[in-house]
């Protein structure tokens, strides 16, 4: 008995919360530098360029590409097993269950676009380094801004609700009280991260 389903599902949970959670935090942290101005963001981006290329590539492949592909592909398989029914059973946790899947469905095309355009095309093919100026020009298109804000909100909600369900899946929070406490904390985190996102995205518009 190898219990492949069990281990793959648990790996999906771990990789989503810790590895992709780190990626999300890194994105929010670095991008929030834009609030302080173009120099601060460019400084943060140049700091990352100081990491030796092979290590940086290793981090990108091992820390982002592989976990993201695994989490997305197995996640699609999981999402296909759900018959979302918040219309019939409108309890808050069931709404979160459905939103967890709907945000995921939005994130799949969004991330293909985001990674494909900025990482593979802009940075990879044209060799243009990512900078405040590049993003400023990119965000002149209001549709791009709206889609990016929605993409961030989707990722942040998916991560925050993921904390709550992670604690249930791993048997950390057992009773309804502790599950509610974690749920409230993670939704507060969700609100704070969304607010930070709005501020740094807005900082491009006011300049």
């Amino acid at each position, binding site marked *: *008995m190898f*219990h*492949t*389903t*069990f*281990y793959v*599902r*648990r790996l999906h949970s771990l990789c989503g919360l810790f590895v992709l959670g780190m990626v999300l935090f890194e994105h929010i942290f670095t991008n929030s530098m834009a609030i302080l101005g173009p120099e601060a963001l460019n400084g943060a981006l140049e700091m990352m360029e100081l990491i030796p290329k092979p290590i940086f590539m290793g981090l990108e492949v091992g820390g982002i590409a592989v976990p993201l592909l695994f989490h997305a592909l197995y996640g699609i398989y*999981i999402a*296909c*097993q*759900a*018959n*979302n*029914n918040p219309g*019939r*059973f409108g*309890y808050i*946790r*069931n709404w*979160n*269950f*459905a939103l*967890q899947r709907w945000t995921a469905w939005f994130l799949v095309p969004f991330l293909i676009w985001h990674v494909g355009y900025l990482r593979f095309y802009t940075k990879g093919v044209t060799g243009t380094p990512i900078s405040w100026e590049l993003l400023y020009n990119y965000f002149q298109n209001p549709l791009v801004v709206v889609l990016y804000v929605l993409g961030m909100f989707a990722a942040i909600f998916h991560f925050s609700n993921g904390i*709550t*369900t992670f604690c*249930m*899946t*791993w*048997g950390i*929070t*057992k*009773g*309804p009280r502790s*599950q509610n406490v974690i749920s409230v904390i993670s939704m507060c985190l969700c609100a704070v991260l969304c607010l930070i996102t709005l501020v740094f995205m807005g900082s491009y518009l006011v300049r």
Partner: protein
Amino acid sequence: MAEKKVRFVIERQDSANDKPYIQEFDVDYRPGLNVVAALMEIQKNPVTVDGKRVPPVVWECNCLEKVCGACMMVINGKARQACCALVDEIDQPIKLQPARTFPVIRDLLIDRTRMFEALKKIQGWIELDGSFESKDAPIQNPYTAQTAYEISHCMTCGCCLEACPNVGPQSDFIGPAPTVQAYLFNLHPLGKFDAPKRLNALMEKGGITSCGNSQNCVEVCPKSIKLTTYLAQLNRDVNIQALKNIFDN
């Protein structure tokens, strides 16, 4: 004065493979009327509101006191027992549908075999080979007896499976009720010897890993069993069992 009537909108189906259709019936109101009693009235005089005489509506019921689980159906969109669905307490017209998470046999009658099959998978019984005298039978742990009593109320009605978004033809999840039964038998002073067997069964495809934490099960359980609490406990137990499986050899 015209007698007060209660309107029933019933989703019917002539056989497992026929298309469902809707028929409406009026039943004379009386105080304390419940859905099963109303279905019995329709059975006595199966005439639709259009005055058409039709075959009586088929459904299942036994105990009429929320103990057997047989009369579970979808009433006004919610999975619940028909016997304790009082007409005075629900919106009218009353809409009755079969619980389509299960195969429909006819009208409101469903086939609940999958729950029995699931109980077989998780070994929902205690092995007794008669090798000891019953006078020395081990006692229940008084600290967990209350929990065991609570879970033993499960009547495999299937409300939780109907409400669970992860149970259905698109998934192989055995459902909350049979999963939580594993915990009941793991608490038993003799059943606990087979706990690793049950936990390993729950680690299989369609076991506890298919739970998506929507928590609908605990909301709809007519016996108020704290299903999500025991699912989290079982999650803990299977994680420990997984570590044992990896490191014990």
